[in-house]
C-alpha cells in the first residue's frame, strides 16, 4: 500500500513539475515576445525633428476614426507646408488630411492612395505634382523610408517597397536595394542606440501631432519670411525623366480605376524655369488621362492674394500666412468642384475641432509675430 502511495505521489510530483515547467516556458516566451514587440516599436523610424515629424503625421492619420476624412492631400513638402487642414475645417467644415512626407517620391503615391482607402472613403484625392520633375537619381533612401517605414505592416507596404526599389535600381546610386531592412526596419534602426535615442522614444510609443498633417510644429520655418521673386510666366514643356514618366502614367491608369475624384495640384513655388517646364509637361500627361489638374499660375496667385515677397520662407514653401491663403483658396476650389460636405457641428468630427484648437495654441503667437513683421516690411 505504501509503495503504491509513494508511486502515485511520485507520479503526481512529476506531473506537477511538468505543468510548472510548461507554465514557466510559456510565460517566458510571452515575456520575450512582449519585449521584442516593445523593442521593435522603440527602435523604429525616428520621431521628432530627426524624422521630420513624418511618424507623428502618419500616426495621426491612423488614429482617425474610419470614414471621417473626406479628402486626402498626398505628396511631398508641397503639401504639409501649404495645406492647413485645421484651418480649412474651421473655415469651411471640410475634412482634408495632409498625408505627406518630405520629398515623397512619385512612385509611392499609388500605394499611399491604397493605404488611405483601407480606413477612409475620401471623396477627393489631391495629389501634389511637384515630385513629377524628379529622376531616380534624385530619390534618396530616406525619401522612400519616410513613407514605407511609417506605413503599417501590410501587403501594400511591401508592394510600395518593391516598386520603390525597382525605381531606385534604375539609378546609379549607393543604395543597397537588397537590404532586408527595407522590409523589417528594426534591422536598420536598432543601431539608433548610438546617440540618436531620447527618453521620449522609450516612453511615447505612439507619437502624434494633432494638426491633421499640417507642419505646425516646424516653428523655425513657418514663422519666417523671405523675399522671393515672383515665378516667371512659363508655358514651355520639357520632357520629364522617362522612368518617372512611366511611374506617372502608371499612376494615372490606376487613378482611372478608382471610384472617387482625383485632382493633381501644383502648389505655389518659384523653382527653376526647367523644373516648372517639366511640371507643365507632367500636367499635360495627367490631363491626357482625363484627370483634373489645378495649376497655380498668375490668376490663381492673385485670387488667393499670395505675395511672394512676404508669404514664403523659401522659394518652395509658404510660411503660415501664405499657407492660410493657399488653404482658403484651395478649399473653395475643392468645394466648388467636388461638393465636399461641411462637417462642422457633427460630433463624429470632434477630432477636427480639437485639431483646430491645438493648431491655434501652437501657432497663434508666432503667426501674430509674423504678421507684424510682414506689415512692417510692407510698410517700408
Amino acid at each position, binding site marked *: 500500500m505504501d509503495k503504491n502511495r509513494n508511486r502515485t505521489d511520485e507520479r503526481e510530483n512529476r506531473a506537477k513539475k511538468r505543468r510548472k*515547467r510548461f507554465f514557466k516556458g510559456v510565460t517566458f516566451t510571452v515575456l520575450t515576445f512582449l519585449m521584442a514587440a516593445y523593442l521593435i516599436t522603440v527602435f523604429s523610424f525616428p520621431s521628432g525633428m*530627426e524624422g521630420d515629424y513624418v511618424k507623428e503625421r502618419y500616426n495621426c492619420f491612423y488614429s482617425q476614426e474610419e470614414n471621417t476624412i473626406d479628402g486626402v492631400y498626398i505628396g511631398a513638402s508641397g503639401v504639409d507646408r501649404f495645406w492647413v487642414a485645421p484651418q480649412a475645417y474651421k473655415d469651411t467644415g471640410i475634412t482634408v488630411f495632409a498625408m505627406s512626407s518630405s520629398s515623397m517620391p512619385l512612385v509611392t503615391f499609388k500605394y499611399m492612395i491604397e493605404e488611405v482607402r483601407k480606413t477612409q472613403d475620401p471623396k477627393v484625392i489631391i495629389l501634389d505634382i511637384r515630385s513629377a520633375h524628379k529622376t531616380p537619381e534624385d530619390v534618396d533612401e530616406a525619401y522612400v523610408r519616410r513613407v514605407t517605414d511609417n506605413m503599417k505592416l501590410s501587403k501594400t507596404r511591401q508592394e510600395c517597397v518593391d516598386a520603390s526599389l525597382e525605381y531606385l535600381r534604375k539609378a546609379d546610386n549607393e543604395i543597397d536595394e537588397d537590404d532586408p531592412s527595407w522590409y523589417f526596419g528594426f*534591422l*536598420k534602426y*536598432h543601431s*539608433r542606440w548610438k546617440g540618436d535615442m531620447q527618453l521620449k522614444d522609450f516612453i511615447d510609443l505612439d507619437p502624434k501631432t494633432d494638426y491633421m498633417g499640417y507642419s505646425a510644429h516646424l516653428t523655425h520655418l513657418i514663422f519666417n519670411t523671405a523675399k522671393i521673386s515672383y515665378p516667371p510666366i512659363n508655358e514651355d514643356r520639357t520632357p520629364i525623366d522617362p522612368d518617372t514618366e512611366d511611374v506617372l502614367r502608371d499612376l494615372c491608369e490606376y487613378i482611372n480605376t478608382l471610384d472617387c475624384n482625383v485632382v493633381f495640384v501644383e502648389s505655389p513655388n518659384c523653382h527653376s524655369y526647367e523644373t516648372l517646364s517639366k511640371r507643365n509637361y507632367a500636367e499635360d500627361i495627367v490631363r491626357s488621362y482625363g484627370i483634373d489638374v489645378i495649376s497655380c499660375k498668375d490668376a490663381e496667385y492673385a485670387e488667393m492674394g499670395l505675395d511672394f515677397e512676404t508669404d514664403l520662407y523659401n522659394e518652395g*514653401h509658404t510660411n503660415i500666412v501664405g499657407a492660410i491663403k493657399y488653404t482658403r483658396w484651395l478649399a473653395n476650389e475643392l468645394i466648388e468642384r467636388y461638393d465636399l460636405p461641411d462637417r462642422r457641428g457633427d460630433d463624429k468630427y470632434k477630432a477636427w475641432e480639437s485639431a483646430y484648437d491645438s493648431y491655434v495654441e501652437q501657432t497663434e503667437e508666432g503667426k501674430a509675430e509674423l504678421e507684424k513683421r510682414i506689415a512692417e516690411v510692407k510698410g517700408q
Partner: protein
Amino acid sequence: MAFASLQFVIFLLAVCAVYFITPIKARWAVLLVASYAFYLLSSPNTLIFMVVTTVATFLAGRAMGKIQDRYQKRIDEAKEKKDRETQKKLKSESKAATKRIVVGILLLNFGILATLKYFWYYLETILTNAGIEVPFDAGILIPLGISFYTFQSAAYILDIYRNKIRPDKNLAKLALFFSFFPIIIQGPISRYDQLAHQLYEGHTFDYQRIAFGAQLMIWGMFKKLVVADRIGALVDTVFDNPGQYEGFTVIIAVICYTIQIYADFSGGIDIARGAAQTLGITLEDNFKRPYFSDSVSEFWRRWHITLGNWCKDYIFFTVSLSPTFGKLGKKSRKYLGDRVGKLMPVIIAQILVFTTIGVWHGAELKYIAYGWYQAVIIISGMLLEPYLKKLAELLRINTKSFGWKVFAIIRTFIIIVIGRFFSRALSFNAAIGMFISSFTWNPEVITSGAIFELGISRWDALILAVSLVIWFIISVFQERGVEIREAMAEKNVVVRWAFYLLAIAAVVIFGAYGSGYDGAEFIYREF
C-alpha cells in the same frame, strides 16, 4: 545560412518542433533531413562532394569491418590453440589488408579537399600572375564544412583501423554523423564514439536542457554579433589597407583581431553547442579560455581543442611513437646529443602538426607561416626548457607565484598576437610589412582619437569595452570552475529572467548587423 541570424533561429525552432513530436526511434531521421536541408539552403551546388565522401567512407568502413571480422575469427581460433605466433601474424595481415583501404580512402577524401580548397586556388593564382583571365572563381566550389567533415571521416576510418570502433552498418546514420547541421559550419570536429550514439538515440523533451541550450546560443550570439562583428570593422580597415597604417594603429588592429577571431570562432561554437543541446546532444567544447594560457603549448590545449586533439591522436602520436621516427631519434642522438636526439621524433611530429594546422586555415603561404611560427615557439620552448629553468633559479624567480603567472599569461598573449599578423594579413609579405611597421612610435593616434575613424565610433568602443569586461569576469569565474548557467539557475526566477531578457535585448540592440543608421541621412535638408 549564418548561425547568428534570425533564419537559423527559426530553422532550429522548426527542427526542434518536428524532432520532439516525432516518435523517439525515428528522431535521428529528423536530424538527417534537417542537416541535409540546412546544407541545401547554405551550399546546394556542393552537396555532391559531401555525399561522395560519406558513401566512400561508409563503403571503406564496411569493407574494413568485414576484413577485421574474417581475421578476428581466425585470431580467435589461434588464441584457443594458444598459438601466439599465428595470432601475431594474422593481426599483422589484418592491419596490412585494412591499411590499403585506409590509404585509399584517405587519399580520396583528402584529395577532394586538396583539389577543391587548394588546387583551384593555386591554379587561379598562377593564371592571374601570368596575366591570364581566370574564367572561374575558385571560392565557389569549396563545399560548406569540407575541412570538418573530411577530418571527421578520417578519424572515423582511422578509429576503425585501430579497432577502437566498429564500422556503422547504416549509411543514413553515418550520413547524419558527417552532416549534423550545428557542426558543419565551424565544428567542433567530433569523434564517432562520442557523437554517433547521441545522434542516433532519440532524446526526450527536457525543459532545463533546452533552456541551457538557448542560453548558450544567446551567449554565442553576444560574442559574435556584439563583439566580433563590431570589432571587425576596425580590423578590416587596417588589415585591408596594409601600407596606410603603422605603429599603434597596427598594434591596436592586431590585438583587436586577436579578440575578434576568438569571439567569432568561440561564439559560433557556442551557438552550435547550444543548438545541439536543445536537441539533447552534447558537443565537445572547443575553447577553454585560451588567452589565460601561460605557455603556447597550453594555448594549443585550450584553442580549437578538437582540432588539436585530432592532430595529437592522428599525427603527433602516430609520428612520434612510430618505429621509423624512433630509429631516427636514436640516430640523431649521435649528432645532436642525448636530449635533443630523444626529442627529435617529437620535434618532427610538432612540425607536421602545425603544418597541418596552418594548411587547415588556408592555401596561402601566410597560413603555413602561421603554423610554423607556432611550431618554432613550441619547439624552442622544448629545447630551451632546461636553460630557462636554470635562469629562473639564478634570478630567484618563483615560477609558481601569482605574479609570474600573470607575466606568463601576458607573455603568451603577446606571442599569440604576433602570430595573428600571419593569419589576418592579406599575404605573407603584408604580414611581415605590418609587423615591422608596428614598431613606429606614434602614440598620438590614441590621444587624438584617430582610432575612431577606422570603422568604429566612440559608442562602439564603449559597448566593446563593457562587453569585454563582462566576458572577462565570466571567464574568470569559469576558470575557477563555476558553471555559469547552473549558477544562474539557482537564482530567484525574477532575477534570472530579468538577466536572460536583458541578455537577449543586448544582443538584438547592440549586435553589429544590418545596414546601420545614420541620423544625418534622415534630416530633411530641403526645408
